[in-house]
């Protein structure tokens, strides 16, 4: 497969059954994308594939052949945090941090589609990502922070 990951072309021969998340973690060595359930429910493995938030534990690496993939490691540019990352930091949007990369990637897509979401729209947008620590409220604050930042 040839997959462009965070702007870098990765070419590798893979088993047909290799999951995208395994490709990212084991072949590319990008361990920021986590595995929480392997059934596509928890969302810890969420990455962007051609701009769409995808649960990388339910997609095969071969399905991503020719795609552009963005993981949490590829979000900041020139050492500057992405507004969503900044929001999570400023608003205490994480505790153990395990769900955070997936949560951040989902939030990035959410804000790309809707630059000024309401609380309910944020809740709806994060429906596919589970967090057991925060109770979500600071995550909602974080997304709102990023939305405001994006507008200014």
């Amino acid at each position, binding site marked *: 497969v040839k997959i462009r990951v965070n702007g870098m072309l990765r070419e590798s021969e893979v088993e047909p059954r290799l999951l995208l998340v395994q490709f990212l973690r084991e072949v590319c060595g990008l361990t*920021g994308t986590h595995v929480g359930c392997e059934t596509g429910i928890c969302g810890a493995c969420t990455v962007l594939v051609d701009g769409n938030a995808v649960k990388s534990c339910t997609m095969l690496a071969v399905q991503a052949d020719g795609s552009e993939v963005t993981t949490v490691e590829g979000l900041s540019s020139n050492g500057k945090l992405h507004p969503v990352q900044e929001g*999570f930091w400023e608003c205490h949007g994480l*505790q153990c*941090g395990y769900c955070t990369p997936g949560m951040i990637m989902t939030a990035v897509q959410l804000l790309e589609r809707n630059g000024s979401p309401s609380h309910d729209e944020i809740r709806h947008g994060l429906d596919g990502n589970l967090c*057991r*620590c925060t109770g979500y409220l600071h995550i909602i604050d974080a997304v709102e922070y990023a939305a405001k930042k994006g507008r200014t």
Partner: protein
Amino acid sequence: MSVTTENAPKVKASQGYFGRAMKRVEDPRLIKGIATYVDDLKIPGVLHAEFVRSPHANAKIISIKTDTAKKLRGVIGIFTGADVNEKVGTIPCASPIPGGKTPEHTVLAGARVYFVGHPVAVVVAETRTIARDALDLTDVDYEPLPAVIDPEKALEKDSPLTHPELGTNVAFTWSLPGGDVDGAFKEADSVLKLRIVHPRLTPMAIEPRGCAASWHAGESSLTLWTSTQIPHLVRTLLPGLIRIPENKLRVVAPEVGGGFGSKLNLYAEEAVVSHLAMRLDRPVKWIEGRRENAAATVHGRDQIADNEIAIQKDGTVLAIRSKIIADVGSYCQLLTPAIPTLTGLMLCGCYKLKAVRVDVTGVHTNKMSTDAYRGAGRPEAAYMIERLMDLVASELGLDPVEVRLKNMPESTEFPLTTATGLLYDSGNYQHALEKAQELAEWPKLIKERDAARKAGRLFGIGVSTYVEICALGPSKIMAAGGWEWGCVRIEISGKVTVITGATPHGQGQETSFAQIAADWLGVPIEDIVVLRGDTATAHFGRDTYGSRATALGGSAIVMSIEKIVEKAKTLAAALLKSTPKEIEFKDGKFFVNGDGKNALGWGQLASEAYIAKNLPPGLEPGLEASSFFEPPNCTFPFGTHIVAVDVDRETGQVNILKYIAVDDCGKQVNPLLVEGQVQGGIAQSVGAALMEHTVYDENGQLLTGEFMDYAIPRAKDIPDFILGSTETPSPSNPLGVKGVGEAGTIGATPAIANAVVDALSPLGIRHLDLPFTPERVWRAIQEKGGGS
């Protein structure tokens, strides 16, 4: 700091980091995806382990065929109980009850399996994929036996036995005769009864468990990286199992993705992986899958309590009798028996009861063990006493708030000895209640409910006034010591390294401990690094559970700083040609009284302390101190939660309209982190109250084996909370903090339950068991003919 004189710190805090809401220093690595959880470790030559697990709740193992699997390319070996159990010790229970019966808990199943998920064999292979393929090729032949599932039926004479060799399903019994219970019941105007079932819950940390072990043959030592809350307790317990000396074992808890009590254990997999790394002389890693996590990581709660409460006409509560059946599952894990006993000890809640009698029967069933889950015994107690207080109010036609106020101690009555023998350190329960009512706009809320009821809606308000026990706790009540350790080192450059024996795993103490150290030392917070979670650097520790890390770990840091300041004064006196008594310490500077111009900072003193050319006679080089903080007592945080709900008659759906929580955790080091703990705690109880329930069918098959079947709250399930706090410092530690990790979870379930029952009360419903799923609520409404 308003703490008792006895414990008041000698060094005054400056700069105001303590008490300030600050973002966390640990976050950058986590939000950039460059933190290291166990599965992220890159260990050269690592092998992968996968466990063959029982699909049956109770069965004899007839045979285990591994030949085909072993032939698979890349399989290093497959090991069964017969290969491993003789060479590895048994899994310990650290809190056995005298007289209890303990089955031998081998790391892999022997002749029988006792629960779905019981590890039967372990496959080791070059890759995880090969190991999983080999799992499928391993053929275990079982003879299924009748499963013991219902803990009450398990106590009947003709019940099958979970562990036949014990001759009973009773794991232990424990009684708390607290005061003259019979006298109190005789004195009572009436006695009310309520049976309360607290369902089994699954902790479901988003990062499952996992561990990796590496054997260093040259040194005959082992490093174990494990997703645990308790690396130090693992280092205490594991050497006996894998038969190496304690000082040949290093345990590291790297980044840990949530614990909630479920990683407060020594698990069979940790022992097996360690053993295999030594046996094969290759590093071995095991990462738990979600289904394994749901089946074979400890569960929580699961108590049935038959309660009697003795009351007076005016709402005075005299005494409680409670018979608790605790379904402990197949084995007693590390703290299994301690959980229901903690329920008994906390059953007074925040009320002045004369007497309490608690009889706990722990029952073995063919299920996963229950053990600590966020709150660990206290949520059950708070739920019981708070449901009972509402029952008293409804029976006597009194206001539930009035009944609570009538039975609360005044703030001047602390320290207060309870009927169960605990010494509540400090409290002002009325103040928290008052503040919560204010935030809830109480009179308006009551009017809103009454109007909604008139309009035919099922609208309810619930209150819980809770107290919990934290900062566990003095060594006299803890099996392996209840102190905490901390070390502070002023490096030669003047930078500060703080090492804590508490093992934060998401709570944020890398930040809050830096805040404490920065203030007490008078240095910029950026100069401080907090290390944790590695027994090679944190030489001692009792780790993080029971909301203990800040109260105890933070205090050990303050103690160490006081020692360093004393030493630095001696050094400064020599350098400034003065005496230690004349040296003043303020804002990180040491100077002779009044002479701020010739002040010495930490950088200069550290340099002198380590280069050691100008030390006064008798003063050791270096600027480092470590301390064990032994608390005189536990702490007792408290608060009030108020909830308003609306129940949909048609669907049984419960909607939380308003949620107010006022928590008092004593002094707050970082209010932002406190808020995060409270929010997360409440959210877990929204789950427990409305959706979560671990279910085994009548054959012992686990029906809630993954997120598809075990619902935990999503963002849309959590309403906005209105949070407040009051501050009653604890006299039990120099920081005055009480702990807040579990408060939200403890206060929330009863408040939500009381609101739901209040909403359903016009239909004549007086109690309903958790969880209030739409189906359960709808059925209750239908039974009372309350559907529309």
